[in-house]
């Protein structure tokens, strides 16, 4: 089901943990839906110098979190904001269709952590932390176990 790259990032996730003095922290998802991603960013001179995550979620959620932290490191804030869910999924050699929402979560976690950083630093004043997961919970057709 999962690509080798996904399995690699799942079984050896990069950047797991917390950054105690993070400049931006974002948490997206909802335990009800079975996916929560929390991302910590260390930002110096508009450049993301470190990133860590904690994730409650499926294999794809863990792997995309890991990949997302890898992708943002070294990027400017503007560059990081351009990372799409597609880019995360592609960097993992693809995700099964039913798991594509996990890559959304990664995109959202990056945005959410950056927004937090921007808010804290007075760079924007409006928050729109994403709650897509829970919209999806209700939207998505109820698919069920198959044994």
């Amino acid at each position, binding site marked *: 089901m999962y690509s080798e790259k996904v*399995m690699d990032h*799942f*079984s050896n*996730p990069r950047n*797991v943990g*917390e950054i105690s003095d993070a400049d931006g922290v974002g*948490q997206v998802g909802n*335990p*009800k*839906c*079975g*996916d*929560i*991603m*929390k991302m910590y960013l260390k930002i110096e001179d508009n450049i993301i110098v470190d990133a860590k995550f*904690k*994730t*409650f*979620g*499926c*294999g*794809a*959620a*863990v792997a995309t979190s890991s990949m997302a932290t890898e992708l943002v490191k070294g990027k400017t804030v503007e560059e990081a904001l351009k990372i799409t869910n597609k880019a995360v999924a592609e960097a993992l050699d693809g995700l099964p269709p*039913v*798991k594509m*929402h996990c890559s959304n979560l990664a995109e959202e976690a990056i945005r959410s952590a950056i927004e937090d950083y921007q808010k804290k630093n007075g760079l924007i004043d409006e928050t729109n932390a994403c709650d897509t*997961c829970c919209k*999806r*919970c209700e939207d*998505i057709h*109820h*698919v*069920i*176990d*198959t*044994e």
Partner: protein
Amino acid sequence: MSDRNIYMDHAATTPVRNEVIEAMLPYFNEKFGNPSSIYSIGRDSKKAIEESREKVSKAIGAEPREIFFTGSGTEADNWAIKGVAYANRKRGKHIITTSIEHHAVLHTCQYLESDGFEVTYLPVDADGLITAEQVRAAIRPDTILITIMFANNEIGTIQPIAEIGKVAKEAGVYFHTDAVQAMGNVHINVSEMNIDLLSMSSHKFYGPKGIGALYVKKGVKLTSFIHGGAQERGRRASTENVPAIVGFATALEIAVENMDQYNKKLLALRDRTIKEIEEKIPFIRLNGHREKRLPGNVNFSFEFIEGESLLLMLDLKGIAASSGSACTSGSLDPSHVLLAIGLPHEIAHGSLRLTFGEENTDADVDRLMEVLPAIVKRLREMSPLYEAMCKK
């Protein structure tokens, strides 16, 4: 050690027993004739089917003419429920079931609701049990069918089927039970238990996939579900799947003959596993009734972690198991069974089902207990929910 494969998902499906494969093989290319033919090679097939029917009927205390082979357990459930509903539509349109049925029953009931039937989904208690009293209270003058599973596929809880059968009989309402998980693990006698219809599926007791059966008590009014040729005395059409029927009956016969001894072994593995998990891992919950449960079923929720990740980690260590996690099914909602017994969503997401079978040994449980606590610990350390709890 991680190269050894340990299978702990027998409730999902079982391997076909070697004796069963042996019994099936001649019917693929030697005695392959169409059982409805009159020439010798067709007569061999016919005989094999009738002997199989006899074995299956014996296993549940029925008459051979009350057994109808189907293409699966799901088909048996669909047939039983739709068949009774449409045949008895004039008498009433109310059906009673539970909220923890397999989807083969639940989705069939929902389909019937879309066609004008009314369905009562009885709630279960925290252990997944319903009572005969609940059933009695739900019966209305227009109730035509009670369909309640014998044992649950996720949490293993075994229902008080004989008591429910008594209530159904007293009320004069047909009683169907999905015994797909119970067959081969629980002693079943349809007449003592007042069961009118009972679904079975062979791949749950070391028989082949793609073959099931429906027991239909003589006299039960039931429309056909699969229309066509006159096979199964005109009630279930299609060329009989002779090798699979022979495999089904052979597997069931072996299962029933060895049930007590087999269960003793499963019970030991089950109870040891439950005990050790409870001793070694904090923040957990045993799902399903502690005693009234299938002998091979262990089901735990592990707080703060998600089931699919747990399964993948176990798989990397060579252990195959199952979860009520939504992720394993492509849905975002966790198992309806775990929600029905009252688990909050996030805890339902983090459940693990281990179902033991024939090949499992104490060494398998040793291995499981070697890796499971560490995996749970690792996933919790990765979990923002655990972090939040720890900081409280």
